[in-house]
């Protein structure tokens, strides 16, 4: 789960991390007042769950309260389109107004989970304010990596070492190390998947400060952080993805695909998507209905796939285990009736009650091509998409 920058800033502040003075505004007038409080010079930042805001016009430097109001008016209520958003962009409901900071140096520090180290990994660099993946690709020696101990966490000497290696001035190493240690505490105590400060700045008046903050959280651990779960902003997500999420379905929308995929199991779902490529078409989505899905959940999954306007055909691939194919088939029929779709279906059903499931689909008069395995599915899909008969 992702949160907004202003929310991340508040979490960091509560952990004693130095951040610029800032406030959040929902109207141009609120933005004006905040800028007034900072003496007029400020930065106005659109609050969206996407990177690349600067290039997209979502970050504006202003030198008066009126300019702050104007900048906010230009962002609020509109959609911001960046290279990381879907094509229609994401809505801006709030802007953050922060005081301007006089920067002497820009650094980078982030913490992620490292599967090989089996521990949180601190990544830091002297090259702040840039795309860190580019730094990693072009000048990998400029990135410092230190794994936290899985049981003890990040030791203070590690944090001092990191601060020195990324070029923090020697008299600021101690506060920088404290800041890095606190970031590691946020990561661990809040079950974060990412804490990224880009840039971490050294100011001209000798402070170390987190100028921008991005924090993501492990969905699987939200049950023990209700205060984090409450920060969710569903509007920032794709509408279909949000609907699927609310229904407890793992669904990812892919832009421009023609074939909707409905599968149980993540690995089989990816395999099914890949198979559509073999059939000469792009998959429209990833969808794992999960293990013990009930009829109405299957129906909802089907309706989500059908309501994607890019979808021309649906590939259903179910391996009954805990999931029963007859239950799934009734769910598909329910979803088809609710939507009134005549979309062609290519269906593979194996395992528990597969024959009953296929019979239910046949009896319902849906436009179904039944196949025995993934290979046949590709062939059938090619025929269906080329308008051939089944």
């Amino acid at each position, binding site marked *: 789960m992702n949160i907004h920058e202003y929310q991340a800033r508040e979490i960091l502040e509560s952990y004693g991390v130095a951040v610029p003075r800032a406030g959040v505004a929902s109207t141009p007038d609120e933005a004006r007042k905040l800028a007034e409080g900072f003496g007029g010079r400020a930065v106005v930042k659109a609050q969206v769950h996407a990177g690349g805001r600067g290039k997209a016009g979502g970050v504006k430097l202003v030198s008066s309260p009126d300019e702050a109001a104007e900048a906010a008016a230009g962002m609020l209520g509109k959609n911001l389109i960046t290279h990381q958003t879907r094509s229609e962009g994401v809505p801006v409901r709030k802007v953050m107004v922060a005081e301007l900071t006089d920067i002497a140096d820009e650094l980078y520090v982030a913490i992620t989970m490292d599967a090989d180290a089996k521990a949180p990994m601190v990544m830091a660099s002297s090259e702040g304010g840039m795309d860190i993946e580019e730094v990693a690709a072009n000048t990998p020696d400029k990135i410092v990596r230190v794994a936290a101990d899985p049981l003890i966490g990040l030791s203070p000497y590690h944090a001092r070492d990191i601060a020195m290696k990324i070029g923090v001035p020697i008299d600021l190493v101690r506060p920088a190390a404290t800041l890095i240690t606190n970031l590691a505490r946020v990561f661990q105590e809040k079950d974060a998947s990412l804490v990224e400060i880009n840039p971490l700045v050294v100011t001209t008046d000798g402070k170390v400060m987190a100028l921008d903050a991005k924090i993501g959280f*492990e969905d699987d651990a939200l049950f023990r952080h209700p205060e984090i779960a409450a920060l969710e902003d569903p509007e920032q997500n794709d509408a279909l993805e949000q609907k699927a999420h609310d229904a407890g379905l793992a669904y990812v929308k892919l832009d421009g695909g023609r074939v909707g995929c409905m599968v149980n199991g993540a690995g089989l779902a990816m395999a099914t*998507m890949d198979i559509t490529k073999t059939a000469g078409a792009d998959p429209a989505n990833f969808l794992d209905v999960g293990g013990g899905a009930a009829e109405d959940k299957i129906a909802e999954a089907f309706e989500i796939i059908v309501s994607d306007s890019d979808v021309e055909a649906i590939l259903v691939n179910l391996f009954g285990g805990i999931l029963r194919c007859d239950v799934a088939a009734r769910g598909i029929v329910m979803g088809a009736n609710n939507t009134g779709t005549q979309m062609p279906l290519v269906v593979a059903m194996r395992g528990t009650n597969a024959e009953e499931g296929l019979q239910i689909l046949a009896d319902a008069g849906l436009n179904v091509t039944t196949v025995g395995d993934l290979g046949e599915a590709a062939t059938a899909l090619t025929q269906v998409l080329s308008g051939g008969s089944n």
Partner: protein
Amino acid sequence: MGILIDENTRLLVQGLGRDGSFQASRCRAYGTNMVAGVHPRRGGTMFEDEVPIFETVADAVAATGANVGLIFVPASGAADAIIEQVDAGLPLVVCISEGVPVQDMVTTLAYIEDKPTRLLGPNCPGLIRPSTKGKIGIIPGNILSEGRVGVVSRSGTLTYEAVVQLTELGIGQSTCVGIGGDPLHGTTFVDVLEMFENDDETDAIVMIGEIGGTKEQQAAEYIKNHVTKPVVGAIVGQTAPPGKRMGHAGAIITGKAALASEKIRILEEAGVHVAESPAVIGAKMAEVLGR
């Protein structure tokens, strides 16, 4: 010989809720010797009138000599269950639970590192060995056939797909192992590849990987240097977009190494016969075996 389980396997199941009970029943029906159940409030009762239920894992192990633990408890308590089973001295612990917080696995893996227990999972379908009628987990027994191909995979249902393809071509399986879809898990591809390489019941190996992480790269390195048996590989997620979690917590493209195309290239370099699509895993094995 065989791997991980044998005719002396004595199964303990922890987490006998609706799904756990259903699956434990399936394990027994397949022929697995389940000797104990663990449920904190049902100690002293029987599972299916034949298997005693205990309040703690330690009690169950002491009373029954259980030597394999299977965990179905909800994700929030899964790490605790793993530690309880490790502390009870079970040599093999299989955790099916899906959605275990990754930080729980950081501390749990560190805790068990110097213990004699092998952990399989979490978020895995477990394992199954047709020759000894041993099933520890949720892989449907009816799709397997006894034979000499070992299967190892990060996935559940995709493993079933591969097994069906093999069975339909008359290619039986020695042992089938799901290592799980989480980024942090106990037993790895390399561990299972080593077991299959040393297993006199296995002639060839199917390895099914997916996008995300670098576990397939480590497997490729191991195969190149240590595996003499033919390996058929498959990597799914070629059509997955970057930065999005594809169901499995570990299946997310975070950089070049996580891409399907990169994993396929490295596996092929290591001499793995990579199936052109997930639909032809069985056919690829038939080709490699000259059938």
